[in-house]
C-alpha cells in the first residue's frame, strides 16, 4: 500500500540528491584552483587531436564562456549519455568504459548481497533462538570481530591463504583470457571460479552484521504478545519461528540491508582492487592512480545515481514487506 504522497516525497529526495551529485560533478573540476585535470591534460595529452582537445577544454571549463552556459552544455551532453573521453582508455569514451565493466560489478554485488542477506537472516534466526547460550555468545563475538574487519584487508588475507599459500583459487581476474565468452560451461565455470573469493570476501564481511541485527530482534520477539498468542493457538514451533518471529524480525534487518547498500558497494570496489577483478571499482582505482579525471567524474555520477535508484527501489520493496508502512 504505497500512497502517492510517499512516492512523491521519496522521488523528490532521490531527484534532489541526484541533482546535488550533478552539481558537484560539474563544479569540482571548475572551481579547484590549479585544476590538476588541466595540468594533466596539457602536459600528458598534447598529442590528442585538436578536436578532442577542444572537447576536453570545454568539459573542464577552459573556455571563457559563462558558468551558466557551460552548465547548460554540460547538462545537454549528460542527457545524451556523454560523459567525456577517458585519458587512460583513450579513445574509448567514459560511457563505453563504464558499459564494459559495470556488468561484472553488478554480478558481484547482486550475488553477494543476496547471499549475504539470506545467510544473515538464517544464521541470525538460529542465534536468536539460542540467545544466551555459550555457542551463541561465542558466535556473536566472532561476528562482531568479522564486522570490524576492513574489506580489503580480509580480501588480501583470503588471497594469501587460498590463492598463494594453498593455490585453490586464482589470484585475480574475471575469467581466463583464453576462454571464449559465451553460454558454454567452461566460460561460466571460469567466471564462477574467479568470482568465488571476491564474493566470499564480501559475504563474510557483511552477513555477520545482518545476522547480529536479526539475532537482536529475534531475541526480542519472545516478549511480543503475538508470539504468546501464536503459542497459545497451538501453532507448531516451525510456523511460529518462521511466520511470526522470523517474519517480523526480518523487517529491521531489511532496513539494515538497505542502509548498508552504499557501504557494500564501496566494499565491493575494494575487493575488486585486491582481486584485480575488472569491474567498475577496479576501473575507478585505475582512474585514480592514472589521474584519469573524466573517468573518475563519470564513475562518481554513475555510482551515485545507481545507489540512489537502488535505495529507492528497496524502499518500495520494504513497504511491500511491512503492511504497516502507511507511507505518509
Amino acid at each position, binding site marked *: 500500500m504505497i500512497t502517492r504522497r510517499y512516492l512523491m516525497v521519496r522521488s523528490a*529526495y*532521490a531527484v*534532489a*540528491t541526484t541533482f*546535488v*551529485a550533478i552539481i*558537484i*560533478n560539474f563544479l*569540482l*573540476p571548475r572551481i*579547484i584552483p590549479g585544476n*590538476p585535470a588541466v595540468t594533466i591534460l596539457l602536459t600528458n595529452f598534447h598529442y590528442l587531436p585538436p578536436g578532442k582537445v577542444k572537447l576536453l577544454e570545454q568539459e573542464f571549463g577552459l573556455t571563457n564562456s559563462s558558468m551558466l552556459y557551460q552548465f547548460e552544455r554540460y547538462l545537454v551532453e549528460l542527457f545524451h549519455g556523454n560523459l567525456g573521453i577517458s585519458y587512460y582508455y583513450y579513445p574509448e569514451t567514459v560511457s563505453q568504459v563504464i558499459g564494459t565493466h559495470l556488468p561484472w560489478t553488478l554480478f558481484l554485488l547482486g550475488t553477494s548481497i543476496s547471499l549475504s542477506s539470506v545467510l544473515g537472516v538464517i544464521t541470525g534466526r538460529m542465534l536468536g533462538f539460542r540467545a544466551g547460550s555459550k555457542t551463541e555468545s561465542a558466535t556473536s563475538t566472532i561476528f*562482531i*570481530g568479522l*564486522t*570490524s*574487519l*576492513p574489506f*580489503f*584487508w580480509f580480501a*588480501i*588475507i583470503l*588471497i*594469501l591463504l587460498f*590463492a*598463494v*599459500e594453498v593455490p585453490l583459487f586464482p*589470484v585475480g581476474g574475471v575469467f581466463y583470457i583464453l576462454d571464449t565468452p559465451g553460454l558454454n560451461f567452461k566460460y561460466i565455470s571460469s567466471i564462477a571460479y574467479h568470482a568465488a573469493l571476491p564474493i566470499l570476501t564480501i559475504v563474510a564481511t557483511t552477513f555477520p552484521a545482518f545476522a547480529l541485527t536479526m539475532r537482536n530482534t529475534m531475541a526480542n520477539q519472545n516478549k511480543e504478545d503475538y508470539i504468546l498468542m501464536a503459542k497459545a493457538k497451538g501453532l507448531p514451533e516451525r510456523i511460529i519461528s518462521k511466520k511470526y518471529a522470523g517474519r517480523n524480525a526480518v523487517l529491521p534487518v531489511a532496513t539494515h540491508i538497505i542502509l548498508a*547498500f*552504499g*557501504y557494500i*558497494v*564501496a566494499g565491493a*570496489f*575494494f575487493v575488486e*582492487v*585486491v582481486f584485480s577483478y575488472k569491474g567498475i571499482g577496479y576501473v*575507478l*582505482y585505475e582512474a*585514480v*592512480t592514472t*589521474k584519469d*579525471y573524466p573517468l*573518475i*567524474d563519470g*564513475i*562518481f555520477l554513475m*555510482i*551515485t545515481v545507481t*545507489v*540512489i535508484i537502488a*535505495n529507492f527501489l528497496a524502499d518500495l520493496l520494504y513497504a511491500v514487506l511491512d503492511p504497516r508502512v502507511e507511507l505518509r
Partner: protein
Amino acid sequence: MFSESGILHEIWSNGKARFGMIVFIIFAIIGIFGHFIYPYSPKATFVIWQPPTFAHVFGTDYEGHDVLSQFLYGTGVSLYVGASVALISVAIGTMVGMLSGYYGGIVDNIFMRFVDILLIMPTFPLLVILAAYLPPTNNTTILILSLLSWPFMSRVIRSQVLTLKERPFIKAAVISGMKGFTIIRKEILDHLMPLIIINAVYLLVGAIVAQAGLAFFGLGDLTSINWGTMLYYAQSEDAIVYAAWWWILPPGIAIAIIGIGANIFGNGITEIFGKRSGGA
C-alpha cells in the same frame, strides 16, 4: 546527573567498556610514544622482502623499510587522522545538533533537509571524487572526512535533545526561568554525554578505516606513513605474490582490533546507559 569522573568510573566498572578503553589506551600509547621507540627510522632501508628476524621483528618491505618501525610510526599518524576527525565532527555535530534540536525552526528545517540528502548520497564515491580533486595531504583527508561525518552526528544529538526537551527536569528548568543557553550547557549536555562518547569512538574508528581505505585506493597523502599507506604499498608492490604476510598483517590486525574494541566498548556503554533512562 553525573560528573565527568563519575561517568569515567561508571564506564570502567563495566567489563565490556573497560575492555574497549584498554584497547584505546594501548593504541594511544603506541601512537604517542611510537615516534620515540621505533628501532630504526621508518625511512631507513635494509635488505628488501625480509621475513621476520631478530633484527627486524616484523621483517622488511619492498624497499627494505623496517615494518615494525613503520608500524609504530604509522600508528601515530592513523590515530592523529582519526582523532582529529572525531574531535571536529563531535564538536560541530554536537553544537549544531543541540541548537537545532533545542530551538527548532527554519534553521533546523534547512539543516535536516541537507542531512537527508547526505544520507541518501553514497559516501564512498563522494569521498573519492573530493579526495581526487583536493591536494593530497593528511589534513585534506581530515577535512573531507569531518565534512561528511558531522551532519550524522548532529542528527543523532538532535533527536536525543528532542526527547530530552520533553523530560520533567528540563521543563522545570524552563519554568524556573533558566536561560535557554544555560539549560543547554548545564542540563542537556550532561545527559548527552554517553551518546557523545559512544559516537566519538565510532567516529574515531570509522575515520581510521576510511583513511586507510582512501589511501589503499591511492588517494590522500601517499608519502605519509600510516596503516593505510602501508597496505596500499603492500597491495601495489605485490606483497601478496611474495607472500609477505609480515608486512600485510600488522596494519590490518591493528585496524581490526581497534574496530572490535570500538564495537565492544559501544555494547558496554549501551549496557551501562541503556538501563538508565538517560541512556544512549
